[in-house]
């Protein structure tokens, strides 16, 4: 089973396209039976079945009340392997991904991790041998906090991280292919967080405060940037606005390209500019890789303001 939680149908359509053109045929070529399940964490009415052929939906309910609880629930599905794939992660070479399944011949191997964003594998692109994960204690995949008495210096573990530690303790291994990912995976960060923030509280605090928040918070700026790139690809492939606002305005549910340029121009802290410049260059490469895969020929939007480029040149 290939599965992942989604909140936005437009992003899910890109995910679905890549999953069905790369991963499904690659794993079927191994003789595996493959099915694709999308967990609709919100906005269920926006996911038209006709846009997601050969894919079933699962909605929040008992045992899977939200996307964090979903991972443990998914492990109870009757299947040998589960591929958890994050909403903004696109594996562009299914043959590469499938080639590592030979490692499951080793009984010590519990999972293959194709993408890691922290020290531990997480669930960004994780192919699990289901029975090993099912044997873990309840809620093993759940996010958690450790050392809360040390707040704010507590440790926040994302979904799947505790499971990775428990498996390691039990002598099982999660093989990590993260070093090879940059050539074969396009991934984006924070694309859902900024949209959730937009719909939850941007209207309450006002546009100026929301833009100030993005200018000060690196992860939000990253998400806004990546959504513009995804919007470029989405429009070219699906001919519609990506992350629209209530009136259908392109990127109004995140941050428009024009607003993002305005926000970035406000950032003066050199260390933040440097960190974002490095991240944006990574995102540009990721988006161009995905554009080549999708056959998109329209030019990539240039978002970094002139004042940044001038500063870098000098």
């Amino acid at each position, binding site marked *: 089973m290939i599965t992942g939680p989604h909140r936005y149908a437009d992003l899910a359509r890109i995910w679905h396209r890549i999953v069905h053109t790369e991963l499904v045929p690659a794993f079927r070529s191994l003789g595996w039976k493959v099915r694709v399940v999308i967990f609709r964490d919100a906005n269920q009415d926006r996911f038209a079945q006709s846009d997601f052929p050969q894919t079933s939906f699962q909605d*929040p309910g008992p045992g899977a*009340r*939200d996307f*964090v*609880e979903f991972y443990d629930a998914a492990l109870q599905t009757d299947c040998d392997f589960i591929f958890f794939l994050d909403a903004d992660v696109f594996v562009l070479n299914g043959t590469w991904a499938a080639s590592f399944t030979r490692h499951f011949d080793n009984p010590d191997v519990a999972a293959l991790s194709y993408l890691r964003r922290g020290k531990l594998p997480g669930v960004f692109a994780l192919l699990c041998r289901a029975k090993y994960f099912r044997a873990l204690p309840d*809620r093993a995949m*759940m*996010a*958690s*906090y*450790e050392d*809360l008495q040390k*707040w*704010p210096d*507590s440790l926040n573990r994302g979904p799947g991280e505790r499971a990775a530690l428990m498996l390691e303790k039990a002598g099982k291994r999660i093989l990590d292919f993260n070093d090879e990912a940059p050539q074969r995976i396009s991934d984006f960060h924070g694309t859902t967080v900024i949209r959730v*923030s937009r719909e*939850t*509280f941007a209207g*309450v*605090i*006002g546009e100026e*405060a929301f833009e100030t*928040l993005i200018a*000060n918070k690196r992860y939000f700026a990253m998400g806004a940037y990546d959504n513009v790139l995804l919007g470029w690809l989405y429009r070219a492939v699906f001919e519609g606005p990506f992350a629209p606002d209530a009136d259908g305005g392109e990127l109004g549910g995140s941050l428009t390209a024009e607003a993002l340029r305005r926000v970035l121009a406000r950032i003066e802290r050199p260390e933040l500019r440097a960190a974002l410049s490095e991240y944006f260059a990574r995102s540009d490469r990721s988006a161009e890789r995905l554009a080549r895969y999708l056959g998109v020929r329209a030019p990539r939007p240039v978002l970094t303001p002139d004042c940044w480029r001038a500063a870098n040149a000098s």
Partner: protein
Amino acid sequence: MVVFSEFESKEISLRVLGSGQFFQKETFGPETVNRGAVLMECEWHGGVFESGIMMGGIFRGGQFRDGSFWGGVFWEGEWLGGVWECGFDRNGRYHPRTDHPPFA
């Protein structure tokens, strides 16, 4: 608001947070009432949360009467109503949508 303790009595002026206000990484004491503000990564120490949104941060005490709780830690306090979108209890255990901690 008048707060009495064993050792002293003193008058504390009420601090009301209103709709349209946004706070990040700030700490609010027992004299605070939230009536619509958005709090991101803040600490809440004993006041009354009547409406608004708590995004991340830690709720160390007080009453949560209404509003939304997103992704923070509910260390202690009274949960009287509102939307529990997600969050953690004082043991670091995750509580999904609708499942506010039992001691809250």
